[in-house]
């Protein structure tokens, strides 16, 4: 137990922390803990966007150059999983579609004054499945506080090890057919997930505080719907080829078409993820001089 002097200090620390939060505006004190109550409140919230003044963005992700050959996954140690694949399962680092487009690109609104400060209802749970010892989907987007149902459809041991840097991660085991619910309380593009039991299993979750996110599909397409009219910065993220952004104008009732183009020579791009934290670049309780 603490002596009295220590208590005094603790109280001061708590007070200082309070002052820091209040002093910073106290707007976003979200963290992953305790977000479920926020989520249930949010589900009754109405969408603040007036559909009559809203428009859409749709487009596709083109790929130039020759598609890199992906390594086949050796699943011989997990016959249950191997049997679920009719063709040899391959790593999903780069998936170039038959029509020459690129899959698994996370496309989202990075900036947009028209939606700044808007509170959006939290959608129902998103599903991340482990089926055949691969994550489905490999790349997904969710909103802050949106539940992610993590399902084990294989009935053998997986662990889900999330290592974000903007917030706390988790590492949970699923030795049986079961589901676990998780959520992220702070926007972060992207949160990497891995299974340590099966070193090839990786997934990425983009967490944003609005519903305007999408992942390019098997034909390279994506869409962001019902945006208030205005100008937006739309960013596209790929785990191997990095990010690129465009400014897009959305008009009421219109659909703006855009195309992102990634190419094989971007393979050494810096992929923004798990940015190293500068220990001096964050407010500290003890930063009081």
């Amino acid at each position, binding site marked *: 137990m603490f002596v009295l002097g220590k208590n005094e200090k603790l109280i001061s620390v708590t007070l200082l922390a309070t002052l820091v939060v209040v002093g910073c505006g106290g707007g976003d004190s979200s963290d992953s803990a305790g977000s479920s109550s926020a989520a249930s409140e949010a589900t009754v919230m109405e969408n603040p966007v007036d559909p009559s003044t809203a428009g859409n963005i749709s487009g596709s992700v083109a790929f130039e150059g020759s598609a890199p050959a992906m390594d086949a996954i050796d699943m011989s140690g997990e016959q249950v999983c191997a049997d679920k694949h009719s063709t040899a399962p391959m790593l999903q680092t780069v998936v170039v579609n038959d029509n020459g487009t690129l899959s698994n690109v996370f496309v989202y609104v990075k900036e947009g004054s028209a939606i700044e400060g808007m509170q959006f209802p939290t959608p129902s749970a998103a599903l991340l499945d482990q089926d055949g010892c691969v994550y489905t989907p490999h790349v997904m987007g969710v909103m802050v506080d949106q539940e992610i149902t993590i399902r084990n459809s294989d009935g053998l041991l997986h*662990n889900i090890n999330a290592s974000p840097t903007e917030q*706390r991660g988790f590492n*949970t085991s699923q030795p049986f057919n*079961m589901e676990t619910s998780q959520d992220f309380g702070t926007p972060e593009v992207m949160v990497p997930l891995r299974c340590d039991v099966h070193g090839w299993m990786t997934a990425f979750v983009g967490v944003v505080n609005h519903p305007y996110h999408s992942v390019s599909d098997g034909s390279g397409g994506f869409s962001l719907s019902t945006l208030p009219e205005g100008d937006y910065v739309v960013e596209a993220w790929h785990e191997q080829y990095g990010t690129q952004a465009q400014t897009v104008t959305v008009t009421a009732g219109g659909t703006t078409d855009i195309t992102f183009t990634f190419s094989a020579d971007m393979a050494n791009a810096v992929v923004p993820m798990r940015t190293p934290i500068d*220990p001096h670049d964050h407010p*500290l*309780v003890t930063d009081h001089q």
Partner: protein
Amino acid sequence: MAIWGGVAFALSLAMMPLGLGALQEDEQLGKVTYDRWCSECHGVDGDGTGSAAGYMLPRPRDFTLAMYNIRTTASGDLPTDQDLLRAINMGAPGTAMPAWDDVLTEAEKQALVQYLKTFSRFFPLDENPVPLVLGSPTGVSEEVIAEGRGQYEAIECWKCHGDQGRGDGESAATLMDDTGFPIAAADLTENWFFNGGADVEDIYRALRTGLDGSPMPNFSDVLNAGVMTDEELWAVAHYVRSLAPEDTPGISEVVLAKLLTEGAELATSFDDQAWEEIEGTYIPLVGQIIVKPRWFDPRVDGVWVKAMHNGDDISVLVSWSDPNNSPDPLWSDWKSQVTRIMEPREAADNEIDAAPDQLVVQFPMQMPEGMERPYFLKGDSRRPVYLWEWKSDRQTALEGEARGVGTESFQDEGQDVSVKGMHSDGQWQVVFTRPLLTSDENDLDFITGEAIPMSFFAWDGDNGESGNQGSLSSWYFLLLEEPTSTKVYVAPPIAMLIAGALGFFIVRRVQKREMESFRS
């Protein structure tokens, strides 16, 4: 509530000047303590990149991530102050992190805990992490341990930790921590190396919290999902505890070679029943860091030794944990990573080619007069050593001699020592057998009742170990039991203990000096 809150607020306002002053003082003490004792490994900025960090695997904790293995809180939650204090006090056995219990004052430790938290942006958000309610252990019995074994199989602990718990599961070769460095699955038979404690409560806590930052997940969600009961999880903890000896092996200086009774057969194989009658002696090994190329990441951290003789021949059984039989293609990535990241990178490229596992048993070439034994690192010109060398890619053992590191030479023929080795379930078991007396004048004669100096060198080829890069022990003694009364070996063990303690002291001093010299 509101009233109390108001009172607390007013109180804290009143105390503010005092509290602030004390806080600054504490922070100052925390910083001074940290800079002096912690920064060399953990870095002045707390990011785990101190000047000595490259010599360590696992790397020192990066405090900016606030990911802590050992906590009482849920996976993803921050540790409590008590958790941090415990880590400081206990250290992390099996890693370079020492225990600071007796080094720092209470005030320094408390200040350090607060200072560590300032490296991360996460602590201010969540001032009071709440420990999990872990309950108390269930009773233990053979049935419980059997139940635990069943659960160990069902929840697939063996995927990483191996069927017999020696860290040799099929996923072990690809494990990485959150900072991308290779990390070994814990060898559950060596609970004295468990970070966070060796007891069943500690094991259960690790299962519930997971070891954040490492591949070890939490099993609380499994309980919450109702697919496993708390009792079953306690059974797993009891089973894991049962994999290690009941008591942590003490340092015994003497391996007693049991004299077999008339007519009993000398064991010449690892699977001989006769070994079960003999208690093993645990001998700790450390990385070779005296001569270049040095090795700071030894896989083999101890060997168990048993010996027996029948008056004509002696057999010595050496067993140790090693996840695989090197070289193994499954472990080639592990090997290349380890050799790439481990400082001080003094080995030539050809020294890190595919290599077998190896063991060398060392004796003096002649019994020393008095207490003086050969230099423990392969002797010197005045006091040469006599060696038994075993390699996993060879069916025979070689006898050899050395007069210092790099002078080892092995006999091509006329071998008097035979060997049988087997790798299974993450363990090597190697039996050497030799006549007590040989006709070769370079072979040491084994005389009953004499305290014969003996030491060990071990290499895990797939951990990047060969040549000087491996692990070694200091001198111990092999004592062949005499047929006569017990009186005769009352005095020798006492002498041995003294000599052993002296030897241990010298080894530690040399190592310490070496550590200091590379740091400076």
